[in-house]
């Protein structure tokens, strides 16, 4: 599809090349270099999607809202209110009145239509580049059930996002997290799951035992987490579809925690504490075979695999304070990558592979930051009393993390921030929530 899009876009180019404007011999083209631009949300217009069947008006309006909210929620787009529209398309097939949209400075125009038959729902849309006067990509249609109307909106927004930014989207994704309630010294915790925007929240476990730091499997079908259900911290594996769960048999040790899936989801990387020493291990979920990846007498925990599965970044206090290290996925001598002031923890490798997000603690403040995988170009994105546990959006563009407020009445909430440091905002969770793990884009 991309190829076709490019071909379409290049068609005029070819024409222009074949019929070159008369060139004056003595002067070549004027050459200008633009090295500074602006950083601002791109204005778009999304007239309410057409209801193509009777009674589809409400769902059409709702889906249109989801599309608009997804896009504006990135901070990269700005919705032009319908009250500014000079005209609106009479039908999905109507020609686009580009001048009307240029006049209100809409740079992108999204049109769509919705049809409902029983519980079957179809949503189709088109995206137009207003100033070029051309459609961007092709019309796309999604079919499903009415119960999934939000996902349909997310899918439309993902497609729009992808066509404009050249990167995949992240709207049709879910987040598993720890829902918290009760007083600070007796807090109940349970696993929750929600859409990336905080909608459709559900619980996956009861709150009878402590749970920590869940992690989605690479394809989003399972969740690993630390559970105190047995009385001691152990690693549990939960099947999202059936909500069934089982405990993973780890190596001998009093405490096992900090579990993560391997790249293909077939193994678990985790920490075990024995005799006060914490190291990182790997257990194959199929065969149950274990291997030990670190063996220092210090704390080694919070592992995260690179997206190609070849390396692991983790935290260790072998130097005397918590710092970040990278080693081969099979163990071996690690290289320290964090050298700034303060302590570094909970590293997470980005799905793009180019960055590592982390928690930094320095001078009484906590920060979420990113650095390149060799530790260079460290950049702090947030600052608060207590920020921790970053997780990446499936496209590596946004981070979610836990922000806890101080004091007896304080508690954790989930926030998100663009990796440029912009667009910091709270994700609605209906109460205290922590330790988000952002799942993949759904199929």
């Amino acid at each position: 599809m991309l190829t076709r899009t490019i071909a379409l876009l290049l068609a005029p180019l070819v024409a222009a090349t074949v019929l070159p404007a008369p060139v004056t011999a003595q002067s070549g083209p004027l050459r200008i270099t633009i090295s500074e631009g602006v950083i601002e949300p791109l204005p778009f217009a999304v007239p309410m999607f057409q209801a193509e069947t009777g009674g589809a008006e409400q769902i059409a309006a709702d889906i249109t809202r989801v599309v608009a909210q997804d896009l504006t929620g990135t901070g990269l787009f700005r919705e032009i209110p319908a009250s500014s529209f000079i005209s609106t398309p009479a039908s999905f097939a109507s020609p686009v009145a580009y001048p009307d949209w240029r006049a209100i400075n809409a740079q992108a125009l999204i049109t769509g239509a919705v049809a409902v038959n029983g519980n079957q729902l179809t949503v189709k849309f088109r995206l137009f580049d207003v100033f070029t006067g051309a459609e961007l990509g092709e019309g796309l249609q999604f079919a499903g059930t009415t119960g999934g109307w939000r996902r349909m909106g997310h899918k439309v927004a993902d497609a729009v996002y992808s066509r404009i930014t050249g990167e995949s989207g992240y709207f049709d994704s879910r987040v598993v997290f720890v829902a918290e309630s009760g007083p600070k010294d007796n807090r109940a915790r349970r696993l929750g799951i929600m859409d990336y925007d905080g909608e459709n929240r559900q619980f996956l476990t009861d709150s009878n035992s402590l749970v920590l730091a869940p992690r989605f499997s690479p394809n989003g079908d399972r969740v690993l987490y630390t559970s105190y259900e047995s009385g001691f911290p152990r690693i549990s594996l939960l099947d999202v579809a059936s909500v069934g769960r089982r405990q993973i048999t780890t190596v001998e040790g009093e405490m096992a925690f900090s579990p993560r899936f391997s790249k293909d989801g077939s193994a678990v990387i985790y920490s075990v504490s024995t005799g006060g020493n914490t190291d990182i291990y790997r257990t194959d979920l199929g065969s149950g075979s274990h291997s030990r990846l670190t063996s220092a007498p210090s704390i080694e925990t919070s592992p995260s695999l690179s997206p190609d599965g070849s390396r692991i970044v983790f935290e260790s206090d072998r130097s005397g304070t918590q710092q970040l290290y990278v080693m081969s996925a099979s163990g071996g001598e690690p290289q320290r990558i964090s050298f700034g002031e303060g302590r570094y923890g909970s590293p997470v490798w980005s799905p793009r592979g180019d960055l590592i997000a982390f928690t930094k603690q320095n001078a009484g403040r906590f920060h979420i930051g990113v650095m390149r995988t060799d530790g260079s170009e460290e950049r702090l994105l947030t600052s608060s009393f207590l920020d921790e546990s970053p997780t990446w959006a499936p496209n590596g563009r946004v981070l979610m993390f836990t922000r806890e407020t101080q004091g007896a009445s304080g508690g954790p909430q989930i926030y998100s921030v663009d990796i440029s440091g912009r667009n910091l905002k709270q994700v609605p969770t209906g109460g205290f929530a922590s330790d988000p793990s952002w799942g993949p884009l759904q199929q």
Partner: protein
Amino acid sequence: MNKYLTVSILVGALALSACTRPDRFGAGAGAGADGMGVGAGAGAGFDQAGIGQSGLGAGNPNSPEYFQQTIGDRVLFAVDQSTLSAEAMATLDGQAQWLQANSDYLAVIEGHADEQGTREYNVALGARRANAAREYLISRGVPANRLRTISYGKERPIATCSDPSCYAQNRRAVTVIAAGALS
């Protein structure tokens, strides 16, 4: 028989913990997930073994209450540290004596951290603190097989303010006496 006793003791320990913090293990301790090695249905019965129902008061030097209140069931640590202070050692000396005098009891040492740290690191740090206390008790003659450790990281603070006075109370290792003889 021995095996059964061990399991009973363990479950008793859990039940006891559940008494001090009712929500802590809850249904999970008894019903459990598979692979936990805990006898199903055992949990409820052992609630009776808890210290609350034993009728022993803090005045009895052989009672867990005495251990908790008079000897002192906890030691505190400096920021990001797990080394024992002189004061902590003195407390642990008392604990060791009591445990040796009351050899029917087991102990679970809980390690905790203050909120000024990342979650998983604090679990590891709490484990280190609990182990420091355990090692010291062993060095004072308490059999290793009577001592288990667990870390709650920063998840179970007892002081909820966000200033150094509360943090100091939360950086702790607590020796929880578990019933063995009473059952």
